[in-house]
């Protein structure tokens, strides 16, 4: 028999098996629904970002209007002076967003657990309340997102089990193995032929599904390379399962025992091992209540304020040697105005918060190292997180976003203090520089 005959045989077999058709239809519904979910979530996030940016733009324009009119700010808030670096920076609506990648259509990942836009000022941190995740139903979030990655990594093996249900086991049960052996010499080519045919159909089906969705959602144009990698990994994953199924079929267990064993293998790799790793990780690294951060925000901040000005000033100069080049670098401490002193303390606090954040991120890093070290026996989750990485919807992508926020906060503090020490009066031109501060 050649491959064409195998393909024909499997096709006939498929269209005559209602339960296989139902399984494919269910898989198709799940896949379609999951892709729609990803697409809808991405659009919702993009829409939210554009609305948020419009609000920021409005605030920015208001500040520009004050500067144009040579005003300090709104009349009912006399403490605001947009001509000073601090208030100018505050009014320049600095913000950072994490735009959803086009690949979110296929891998929602952990995107629903993190915030993706934040207005940043001199006091911002990466753990502020305004960086919380979007409002959602916690019971739904606990169940996890139904994304295409879930459908492929967790439901596809079940579809393969259903499609391969009759391969090998049927021949065994109906005792036609001998007949096949007489015709082909050995049974292996027959089994291989059937499984390869199923593999070809499934691969074609997956590619078609991905390509059609990618075309309609624009992923091909925007993230062709990631999409290619994503598809290649999915196909590889499919064929690894098929190889496993071939191995199992060679044990000649019969249809029912074969299906039971495959289901058990799926349960072990999809539920038991990931669940056990999850439990172990939580036991070793339990939910961080962030007390360290809370202490830094309140107690440490108070301690910094209680520290003598010259000490804090020296520390800040040590961290930012550029300050030595400013106009006020050589001015004695006693001459410093209160707002300039506040600026020094604020910068020191920002620097301290960055250090604390790094410490916290490192402790999370230990948990993540534990998780990644389990990938060799927890391969489905390993592949899943790689795919999430491709779609920039994994923890790492959001951690990088948090790091950017923390750095942006320091950049803002640094710019303010440098301009204050250079006695800069903010005009429209300077304000435009502020406006573009975080663009780089």
């Amino acid at each position, binding site marked *: 028999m050649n491959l064409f005959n195998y393909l024909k045989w499997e096709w006939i077999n498929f269209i005559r098996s209602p*339960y296989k058709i139902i*399984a494919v239809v*269910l898989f198709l519904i*799940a896949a379609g629904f999951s892709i729609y979910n990803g697409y809808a979530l991405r659009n*919702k996030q993009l829409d*939210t970002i554009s609305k948020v940016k419009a*609000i920021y733009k409005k605030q920015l324009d208001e500040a520009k209007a004050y500067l144009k009119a040579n005003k300090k700010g709104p009349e009912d808030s006399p403490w605001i002076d947009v001509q000073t670096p601090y208030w100018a920076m505050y009014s320049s609506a600095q913000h950072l967003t994490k735009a959803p990648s086009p690949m979110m259509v296929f891998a929602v*990942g*952990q995107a629903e*657990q993190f*915030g993706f*836009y934040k207005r940043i000022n001199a006091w911002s941190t990466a*753990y502020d*309340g305004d960086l*919380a995740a979007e*409002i*959602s*139903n*916690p*019971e*739904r979030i*606990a*169940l*996890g997102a*139904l994304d295409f990655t*879930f459908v492929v990594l*967790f*439901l596809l093996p*079940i579809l393969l089990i259903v499609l391969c249900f009759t391969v090998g086991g049927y021949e065994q049960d109906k005792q036609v193995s001998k007949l096949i052996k007489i015709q082909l010499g050995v049974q292996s080519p027959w089994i291989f032929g059937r499984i390869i045919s199923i593999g070809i159909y499934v691969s074609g089906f997956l590619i078609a599904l991905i390509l059609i969705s990618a075309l309609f959602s624009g992923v091909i144009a925007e993230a062709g390379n990631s999409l290619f990698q994503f598809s290649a990994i999915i196909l590889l994953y499919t064929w690894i399962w098929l190889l496993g199924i071939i191995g199992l079929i060679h044990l000649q267990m019969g249809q*029912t025992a074969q*299906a*039971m064993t495959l*289901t058990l293998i799926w*349960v072990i790799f*999809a*539920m038991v091992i*990931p*669940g*056990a790793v999850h*439990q*172990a*990780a939580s*036991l070793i690294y*339990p*939910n961080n*209540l*962030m*007390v360290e951060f*809370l202490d830094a925000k*309140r*107690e440490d901040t108070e301690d910094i304020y209680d520290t003598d000005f010259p000490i804090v000033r020296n520390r800040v100069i040590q961290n930012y040697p550029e300050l030595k080049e400013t106009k006020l670098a050589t001015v004695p401490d006693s001459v410093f105005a209160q707002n300039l002193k506040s600026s020094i303390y604020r910068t020191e606090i920002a620097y301290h918060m960055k250090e604390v954040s790094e410490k916290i991120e490192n402790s*999370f890093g230990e*948990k*993540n190292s534990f*998780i990644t070290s389990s990938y060799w026996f927890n391969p489905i989750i390993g592949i*899943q*997180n790689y795919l*999430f990485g491709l779609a920039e919807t994994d*923890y790492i992508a*959001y951690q990088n976003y948090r790091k950017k926020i923390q750095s942006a906060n320091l950049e803002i503090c640094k710019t303010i203090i440098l301009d204050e020490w250079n006695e800069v009066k903010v005009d429209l031109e300077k304000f435009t520089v502020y406006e573009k501060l975080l663009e780089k």
Partner: protein
Amino acid sequence: MKAIIWNEWILLRRNPWFIGLIIVLILIVGLTSYFGVAETKKLIAMEAEASAEIRSQWDNQEAGNPHNAAHYGTYLFKPSSALTGFDEGVNGVVGKTLYLEGHRQNEIQYSEASQSLQISRFGKLRPALLLQLIIPLLLIFLVFASIRTERESDRVRILLVQGGDFRQILFGKIIAYWLLSVLFLLVTLSLQLILQSEKLTTEVILRTCLIGVGYAAFYWIISSCTAYLTANLRQAGTALSLMLACWIVWGVFLPKISGTLGEQLYQLPTRQAFADGMRADRASSLDGHNPEEEKLAALKDSVLRKYQVETVEELPINFDGLLMQADEEVGNVVWDKHFGDLNKVLRKQKTFTQVSSIPNPLQSLQSLSMGLSGTDYFHHADFMLKAEQYRRQFIKSLNEKHAYGGSKTGDWEWAADQEFYRSLEDFSYSAIPLNQVFNILWTDVMILFGWVIGGFLLINSSKFRI
């Protein structure tokens, strides 16, 4: 029937593979119970330590203005329920740290899920996961294998010729395996109680017993459906395929689909839209044409009248404190409206998922299990509500001290002493009582009950077919 049940157990006892499997499963169930409880105990200890630290910071703050103290605020750590070790529910995704301060209500933060890469799609290997998905799978295999062997070996004919009743044979087999699954249940739940004996209350014991009843009902459903299909479908493979399909659709497919569908049908606002709505309502309350502004003016007038003075500066009390409280109350009304709306949407979503679980008893069991373990959305919402009630009382005490503590209007330097701060009561949380939990979970109970009856009827309608 007793003979059939006994006979099944003898057959199982003779199978060394089966005995091995049971021992392994009991070990796994035991270990998951142990680790689940160990993690919960660790969390409870961390929560207590963190709460004590935050409280000591509050108690040891220097004398200061009460309004500054309202901004300093305090933190609450959502306590883990005693049965979190059994079923984690939403606790892994909602965070535990809540900042309480004046003027605003914050969201609970720092969920465990946001602190690492995703580790699993079906949650931690907790007893609930084993009992909801793995034990039913085993039950499907065992009931199927038993009835199929009976049919294929034609022993069922001999039993019928000897005067046996086919339905009784089926009931006997179902009960035999159902009791086996109940054994796992008993081991798990007993371990839950034994391992945390120091935390045991009547409420916890009662909740545990009800969890047991819910799971036992589900096992009955699984056993009877498998028995019915295996006994009534000519091709044994089809019966197994159908039950496996049910298991997958019930356990993997439908919960995710219905959850997502519920969220799309009853949409929640985005955080930005929600914040904008709150901001708009608060802003409108400061509008000159708005009754809230009138309310503030009325407050000022009434206070001036009460103390028979012309200006707030002449008042023997600090009017700023009263204003802060009035502002707080405006904020509370806005919060009540918006969070009330949010809660309504979430309730609709819950009702949708509950009703959509009519064809999926496993989903009803999951909802029941979370609810009784005190880890579902309603318990979370209850904590948030009680925390907000505490925040209001807490801020009100500070504002009243600001107003009546001895300072005059405009005196922001006035300081309340440490004793006052220490005298403010700490937050203590008690979960929703069991009777109220049933107001929420009755749909799930009814669905499970309906399926149990359905299981009885199915088996009762079974006829032996050649």
